[in-house]
């Protein structure tokens, strides 16, 4: 392992592909929880954890995790007993930093019907080490929640939040979805107000994306559903940004807002440390069905086929289907387009480092005397003219240190990012 890799943060992502029922917009990898092989799944996960950890040890690249993120699906539908076993195995196998961020995704109304059960369940998560909860609230309007195919109501959210707070969870994210068909900008802002009333430490806001192959996708095709026009969607987005800034949240990534700490000029202490790994070219181990990882310069992806996942692990192999060793250009390119998701943007120095550290020859080509900005624009010479056009149109800020999107630039961020791939 190089010294460079040592400075990198490391996270672990674990995918739990089960839900009570699938939402009508969801193109994500998940299965109904009822009668599903949940126990078999956590058993398989434990095998994967052990295989992966052994491999890391063998390569001498093992080190403790700075973040753990259990996502889904709905991880909160998993049995506490098997979940707790799995987490024990995880911690034993990889090691976890004492101050690690440990997020669990949970959906309202899945934490237990009775207060007592819920308190106990949350206590169990605390024992496991979970210190951040991410709740898929999506809306505070019961008709809209029903339309989306969610199983909870606005009242469930209120009760869940009350108990979560009572249990002492002081780092909670709430997801809010807008541009649901039939929803006006005012409706979205009303939802936001109700969410703000819970004073969450973190809010993720994103517009509904109609994906092919989902019930919504089919409804859009048949004309049963009319998507919210782009113009309205963007207007709502910018209104949400305004409102959240006024409410004391830091807009630190395209869709993510974190409550500011004591020093309003310092980065918020509530930024999602795990998600930040993805935007900083840090390392993460992906575990579970369809999970992705990025370790030692290699991007990999696990199979999305549950039978194959089980088969691989019962044969003692990792369930990886895709593997790609990043080139120097891959690294700088990813550093740019993931980094541009952050409001602070990218710094040439970081991007160029991602390039030079992968390729010894590159170091020779660029002399010590070249500034990072010069090297950067030499690598992306083709993109320069268009990048300057975007800058002139007020969508991108280019300065001596690096690049960042403006809030207007976010609306067409894909076009700007695609200059750098």
């Amino acid at each position: 392992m190089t010294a460079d890799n040592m400075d990198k943060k490391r996270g672990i992502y674990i995918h739990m592909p089960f839900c009570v029922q699938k939402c009508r917009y969801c193109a994500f990898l998940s299965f109904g929880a009822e009668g599903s092989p949940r126990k078999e799944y956590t058993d398989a996960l434990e095998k994967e954890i052990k295989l992966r950890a052994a491999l890391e040890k063998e390569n001498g690249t093992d080190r403790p995790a700075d973040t753990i993120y259990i996502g889904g699906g709905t991880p909160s539908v998993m049995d506490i007993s098997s979940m707790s076993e799995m987490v024990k195995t995880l911690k034993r196998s990889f090691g976890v930093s004492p101050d690690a961020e440990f997020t669990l995704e949970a959906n309202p109304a899945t934490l237990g019907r009775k207060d007592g059960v819920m308190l106990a369940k949350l206590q169990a998560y605390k024992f496991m080490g979970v210190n951040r909860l991410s709740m898929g609230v999506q809306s505070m309007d019961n008709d809209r929640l029903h339309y989306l195919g969610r199983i909870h109501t606005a009242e469930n959210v209120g009760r869940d939040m009350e108990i979560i707070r009572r249990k002492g969870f002081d780092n909670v994210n709430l997801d809010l979805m807008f541009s649901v068909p039939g929803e006006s900008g005012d409706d979205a802002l009303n939802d936001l107000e109700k969410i703000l009333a819970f004073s969450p430490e973190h809010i993720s806001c994103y517009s509904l994306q109609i994906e092919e192959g989902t019930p919504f996708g089919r409804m859009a095709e048949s004309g049963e559903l009319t998507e919210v026009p782009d113009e309205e969607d963007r207007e709502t987005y910018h209104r949400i940004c305004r409102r959240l800034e006024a409410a004391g949240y830091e807009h630190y990534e395209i869709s993510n807002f974190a409550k500011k700490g004591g020093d309003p000029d310092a980065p918020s202490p509530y930024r999602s440390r795990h998600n930040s790994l993805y935007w900083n070219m840090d390392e993460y181990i992906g575990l579970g069905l369809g999970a992705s990882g990025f370790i030692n310069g290699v991007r990999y992806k696990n199979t999305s086929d549950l039978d194959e996942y089980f088969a691989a692990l019962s044969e003692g192999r990792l369930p990886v289907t895709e593997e790609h060793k990043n080139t120097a250009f891959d690294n700088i390119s990813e550093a740019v387009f993931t980094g541009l998701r952050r409001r602070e943007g990218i710094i040439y120095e970081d991007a160029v480092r991602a390039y030079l550290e992968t390729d010894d020859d590159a170091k020779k080509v660029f002399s010590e005397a070249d500034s990072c900005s010069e090297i950067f624009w030499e690598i992306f010479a083709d993109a320069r003219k268009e990048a300057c056009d975007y800058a002139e149109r007020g969508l991108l800020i280019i300065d001596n240190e690096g690049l960042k999107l403006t809030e207007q630039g976010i609306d067409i961020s894909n076009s700007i990012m695609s200059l750098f791939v």
Partner: protein
Amino acid sequence: MSYLDNIRNFSIIAHIDHGKSTLADRLIEKTGLVEARDMKEQYLDNMDIERERGITIKLQTTRLKYKANDGQEYILNLIDTPGHVDFNYEVSRSLAACDGAVLVVDATQGVEAQTLGNVYLALDEDLEILPVLNKMDLDSARPDDARAEIEDIIGLDASEAPEISAKTGMGIDGMLEKLIEVIPPPQGDPDGRLKALIFDSYYDSYKGVIIYTRIFDGRVKRGDTIRMMNTGKNYEVTEVGYCIPGTVPADELKAGEVGYICGSIKQVADARVGDTITLANAPADAPLKGYKKAQSMVYCGIFPAEGEKYENVKDALEKLQVNDAAFNFEPENSAALGYGYRCGFLGLLHMDVITERLAREFDLDVITTLPSVVYKVVMKDGQVLDIQNPSNLPAPALIAHIEEPIVKADIMTPNEYVGSIMTLCQNRRGNMIHMEYLTKTRVQLHYEMPLNEVIYDFFDALKSRTRGYASLDYEFLRYQPAKLVKLDILLNREPIDALSTIVPEEEAMAKGRGICEKLKEIIPRHQFEVPIQAAIGQKIIARETVRAYRKDVLAKCYGGDITRKKKLLEKQKAGKKRMRQFGSVTVPQEAFTEVLKLDDGR
């Protein structure tokens, strides 16, 4: 007995997918030329594009040796022919090099329009024709019906037609025996004055142009000075030989034989198909008949796409021309697309092949504009101009009238599709000359149609209306006056010359509306409104608007799947590379060719 008695020069003629190439493969295999393990499927087809479309444009000529049941060894020269209407002239020259032809009829399909077209070309060259029923391994084969069709439609006795399967190899031996019996040996005087027909040529970077030839009289060897009788150019022969396939040198080629000649010739246009080779010091008195200069029927502009170098395009076009005498180009300047070339083709397929080769073999990014035919513009002062680029059409006030090329189109179809074909042809300004029942269920329709209507997706429309059963053959007939106007397209109020077309006056409105609608689909949304207008002169006849703004943002990066996100961005970038900037409007490059593909289901 003369050596000539043991030579047979023949072609295989067939409808596009009736199995010509497969049969050629089988013959090569049967005569032991290529080991079975080295057989690529369809050995003779050597261009990827053709292989993918299953169309054969140019096959290689091959010399086969076959030991017949009579104990004698025969030299069989298989001279293959292109299989598409665009290449009729080339077909006719290849046939002229033969003494007979094997007519392959698909026993599951029967006779098709092109089969008939090619049979007529063969009859014009006085060739003996051996009908063969192919695809006999299929359950759907109906040899008796096919035989009856050959007799009824073509008028050949098919009672003894060999039944074969080129795919499995069944019946091939019997067919070869029959071939030696039916097809006559060549005639000619090896001691006469040299008369050799060029029936194909291609450029080889080491040897220069390699001419494929059939010697009718005389002989030719290395060191001779040959003369092309139609172009008058002389060359010194550096090599002669046989095509086995590939080139295998020989001492000489003599009357009746088929082989190749090299003479440091720089481009195929100097060894034009149909020309007659003779010796410079002892020339024949007259060339063989049938020489024709290649005539371009369809033109389009080819421009370097954004970021592509003009020089690269020029180099590639020059290289292609070296090998394709029917392809020509000259520089053109478009206000919208910049510097590029106006290119002439034999037909639409020829155009497709060339543009695809530019992309594949030369890795070029080019924009091709709408194909156009050549109009004869009769001016008020009596001058007649040939106009193939709509931008060059003179002001209406100066024009007396315009004439457009008309083709004779023969369409063969199962009778149940006659109605929809007639509707289609009517929409394309076709004029039905007559219709005949070839058999109880097969009909041939004879139309006269403007070529302009045939070159835009007519073939696709025909195929889609007849579930692929109809077949088309067309040839140029004459020029005919027509009421035509220039239709201009404006984007963001700026005329885009590369989108101008010449259309019949009465259809201008509908066409203009159609183009605007199509462009509205193709042009991505911008951060401002983009009006699309169609105009004749100053008059706007249709308008659409591309609404402003499009969000282009991914709210979530699911579970750190950076690779998925990256693929999306790469796709987007690749899509953008195929865009063209007009002022502040970005237009995808396919707009220039897609725009008139308006299937008239109307």
